[in-house]
């Protein structure tokens, strides 16, 4: 089974628009996984039916039983997150600050503290309008553990792919270089980097590619809005060349990207010229994965 992970480092480069387009082009032959769990948007274009919805529990939260608490303050003294302030004369847990390490519960002399498992979001298994299955999720507001939810989404996608005999999983990853991205990358066969010729785009591509290299995963790159700046475009091309990253496509700046999203469709369903470019790009991607 092959796994294509689309990431961008920087947000707003067109990653989700392109991934949703690939999902349309791939049709029923693939399983889609939306791992951008903090701000998942692919469902806006692919009309999932939310057939299965399950709660996701991960991590813990300390809860103080005020009946048992003697106010000794040992818990607050060991908490490295300053998450047990005194409010109205009582020690209370700041739910946002608590990381669920459990240290306070272990040392509380009256056993007044327990740790409860936290519901950090939901994950869904859906049929899309393309006929494919998509695994997606929604992280609870402000929740921790997005990396674990990403791992869950990927794992469920694998189960579906095996069950239905699909050879390909298409993953929409998250921005940045932190835990959700690391989680998205594990087990990937090919990374598709989406960037733009802006100083920020180049900067963020360099950083995220450094991470991809640590995983030793082959990668290709799509330069979106390619005609925005000729100098940065040249720098980008040089970087790809030096790093052995396959240039998959250069797509000019086009407001039809926004038009397509606004009409609730992908670019390949919206504009014939862009559709041609994206289709060629998808062909290159599938060939790269097959050859791997």
């Amino acid at each position, binding site marked *: 089974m092959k796994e294509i992970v689309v990431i961008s*480092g*920087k*947000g*707003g*480069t067109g990653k*989700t628009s392109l991934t949703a387009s690939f999902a349309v082009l791939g049709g029923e032959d693939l399983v889609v996984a939306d791992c951008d769990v*903090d*701000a998942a*948007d692919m469902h806006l274009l692919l009309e999932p039916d939310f057939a299965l919805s399950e709660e996701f529990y991960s*991590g*813990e939260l300390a809860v103080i039983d005020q009946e048992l608490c003697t106010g000794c303050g040992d818990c607050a003294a*060991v908490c*490295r*997150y300053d998450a047990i302030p005194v409010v109205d004369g009582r020690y209370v847990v700041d739910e*946002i600050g608590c*990381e*669920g*390490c*459990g*240290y306070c519960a*272990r*040392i509380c002399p009256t056993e007044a503290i327990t*740790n409860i498992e936290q519901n950090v979001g939901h994950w869904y298994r859906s049929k899309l309008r393309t006929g494919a299955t998509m695994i997606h999720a929604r*992280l609870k*507001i*402000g*929740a*921790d553990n*997005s*990396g674990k939810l990403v791992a869950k989404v990927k794992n469920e996608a694998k189960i579906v792919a095996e069950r239905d005999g699909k050879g390909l999983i298409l993953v929409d990853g*998250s*921005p*940045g*270089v*932190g*835990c*959700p*991205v*690391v989680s998205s990358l594990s087990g990937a066969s090919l990374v598709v980097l989406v960037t733009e*010729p*802006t*100083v*920020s785009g180049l*900067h*963020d591509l360099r*950083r*995220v590619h450094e*991470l991809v290299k*640590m995983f030793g995963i082959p990668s290709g790159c799509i330069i979106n*809005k390619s005609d*925005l*700046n000729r*100098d*940065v475009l040249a720098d980008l091309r040089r970087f790809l060349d030096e790093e052995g990253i396959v240039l998959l496509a250069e797509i000019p*700046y086009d*407001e039809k990207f*926004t038009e397509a*999203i*606004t009409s*609730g469709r992908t670019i390949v369903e919206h504009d014939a010229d862009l559709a041609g470019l994206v289709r060629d790009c998808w062909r290159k991607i599938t060939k790269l994965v097959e050859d791997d």
Partner: protein
Amino acid sequence: MKIAIASGKGGTGKTTLSTNLAVFMAQTEPVVLVDLDVEEPNSGLFVRGDAVHDEPKYKMIPVWQEDTCRLCGNCQEVCNFNAVMMLGPSIMVFPELCHGCYACSELCPTSSLPMEPKKMGDLRHIRTGNLDFIESRLLISEEQAVPLIKQTIAYVDDRFSADTLKIFDSPPGTSCPVIEVTKGVDLVVLVTEPTPFGLHDLKLAVETIRQLGKQFVVVLNRYGIGDDQVEKYCEAEGIQLLARIPNSRRIAEIYAAGGLLYRDVPEVGVVVEEIAEFIRSRREVGRS
């Protein structure tokens, strides 16, 4: 006064607004611009100045002392993050999983897991005129942004008075890094764009900020493209739509080259001035 420039969706213009606003306002008063998007810090590409201070940032992780360890397994038992494991006759520490809670270290009966610093990133502080700029960047392979964000805010709090205007360029999304940035600010400016993606992620961001009980306003970027759903949503929710930054290819081109917009694009200059005025009026309200 602390202001966070945030957004649910990435790439909506947080850095553009943060840098333009900071440089503009620094013409008349001291401003501290802090890039807290430590995973992908970009504000520094748009601001130049003289070096004030550089320092590596560390997090504390346990380090196993083989000679005193009795292999009782207590450390593995107390770690809720599977960051300390007993594998055969040795204790393995996985620093990327460690949350630095100290439980394994302080509860070890033989003190065989002392906490030692491990580098997680670098902080850089530069100055030009009235503007102080501070950014931190997470080392690649470090997964947790929150500890570095905390230390960067602490650096700023130590060096500048509470009254000084501080602008925080936030990470995207709605999870723990954003919470860490926004929970201590006086005002959140949410930047979005008039598309279904922009609207969807704005709603998530609004829910997050409301949960924190913070004052917030919305700035609509790339105005003129897409549809009017963000405006309708703000109206229905009683959210103040503070300003609209027009959509134009020229703006995208100037941004691409690393340039600031308020001087070269009069339409943007007007908007930045409006937002600056709003912030100043808010501060006056806070003082009185």
